[in-house]
């Protein structure tokens, strides 16, 4: 699971997809996840990273995390190739 390479992320929480011209706004937790995905972190790494900073337990976070990924997929921001 990787963010598409050409996706641009600004410090203020805006995401731009140069292929489609779409832009997006993201909340703070979303931004941190995007940053971790850019660094190609694994699910476990994202989980431990977020749960150490935020008031949330790992299993609750996992649910929101996968939901977020499905939004990224819906907006065609993920690189799906290496999933196979």
């Amino acid at each position, binding site marked *: 699971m990787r963010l598409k390479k050409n996706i641009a992320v600004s410090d203020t929480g805006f995401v731009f997809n140069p292929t489609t011209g779409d832009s*997006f706004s993201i909340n703070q*937790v979303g931004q941190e996840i995007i940053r971790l995905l850019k660094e190609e972190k694994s699910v476990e790494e994202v989980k431990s990273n977020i749960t150490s900073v935020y008031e949330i337990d790992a299993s609750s976070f996992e649910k929101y995390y996968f*939901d977020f990924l499905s*939004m990224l997929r819906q907006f065609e921001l993920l690189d799906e190739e290496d999933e196979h």
Partner: protein
Amino acid sequence: MEKKPFERPYIKKLQAGMPSKFGMKSQAEPITHIDNIPVSELLNDYGSPVYVISEKTIREKYKKARHAFTTRYPKVQYAWSYKTNYLDAVCRIFHQEGSWAEVVSGFEYDKAILNGVKGSQIIFNGPDKTDEDLKKAIENDSLIHIDHFDEMYSIIALSEKSGKRPKVAIRVNMDTGVYPMWDRFGFNYENGDAWDAINRIMINEKLDLVGLHTHIGTYMLTSNAYKIAAGKLADLAYGIERKYGVSIKYIDMGGGFASQNTLKGAYYPGSDTLPSFDEYAEAISSAILNSELNPRNLPILILESGRALIDDAGYLLGTVIANKRLSNGNRATIVDVGVNLLFTSFWYEHEVYPAAPVSEHLEETTIYGPLCMNIDVLREAIAFPLLKKGDHFVIKRIGAYNMTQWMQFITLRPNVVLIGLDGQVHIIRKQESMDNITEQEAVPVHLKEI
């Protein structure tokens, strides 16, 4: 190190200049306190969901509504519309403020008596009054508002037996330029039925015609309809005076003033578009004052406002059960408040607020209740903050009709609390228990064993 509060991760596609059906108005500002009591404390102490009523707001609204009329018309009397909210504590606040009672059933009538309202200060409306109800009302000198000729003749028959002269008014329906016209209650003005009813009462002499009543509809968006209605009742009153030399003691304009809720499908929020008490008062008062009626002997003006007086004082607090995504990718939030507790969500786009500060990110959401039924939708489309399981929310302006039209469906009704002027929280209706339900049931012997 203290951890940061967690908000669901969220990404939203930006669409330039495309207003969506979700509207522009958002509810990201939290409601953390009601009359200085923390919402979290209320939920903690009284369970979720819980209804909360502010005594302060009721009294303030009432005073404002009264002031709008008393500054324009010399004799004003409010009568609390029991059906809107007949919890005893609520009724008694209105009665302490000087309201009479307006009831539409034997049950409501008995409640008003139990609340200590004098019989002569109870207005008895509605199409279904049994002979038993009518006997009681006649005995107590209550004001009986006649809905149809069958009722008129029942009252005449009962008065012959009791030897009392019942005090009555007729309910009049009429064209005020507002559609649909409420012509199923009372006697029509335009087709002459109202005069027919008046003539029969006056000629018969067994009944004392003291008032004229109308209730032109509910949630009236224009004050002009009241001007037309008040003008028509004043004309009737003047006609009675001329023809029979009898002066009508009161004109009752019913209820129907809008609260600030937004009707479903309305383009602008209710708070931006609806007439104020002052506008309604101006329309009604000026119509009576400008009529032919003798200014030295004006009738009392009675008002039966319901929702406009109590909606703002009521809150419904609840908790998020889950978040989901629908098949089309749209977000759904499931909460522990359903249409069983929020009947008015069939009419209104209720405002739902988070109970704690949230980020500015809003998601287009459908809010569902917990009822396991397709009709259980609180808001079809609302721009809503990213609440997660266990987060609390506050639904605003729900004081009218919900605590009378609620349904005991698949669960028990929750606590209703009043935040008193004393700053204390009082339970005014206890959470129901299984016993409350099963006590009413009976199991035949052959079904005892299963």
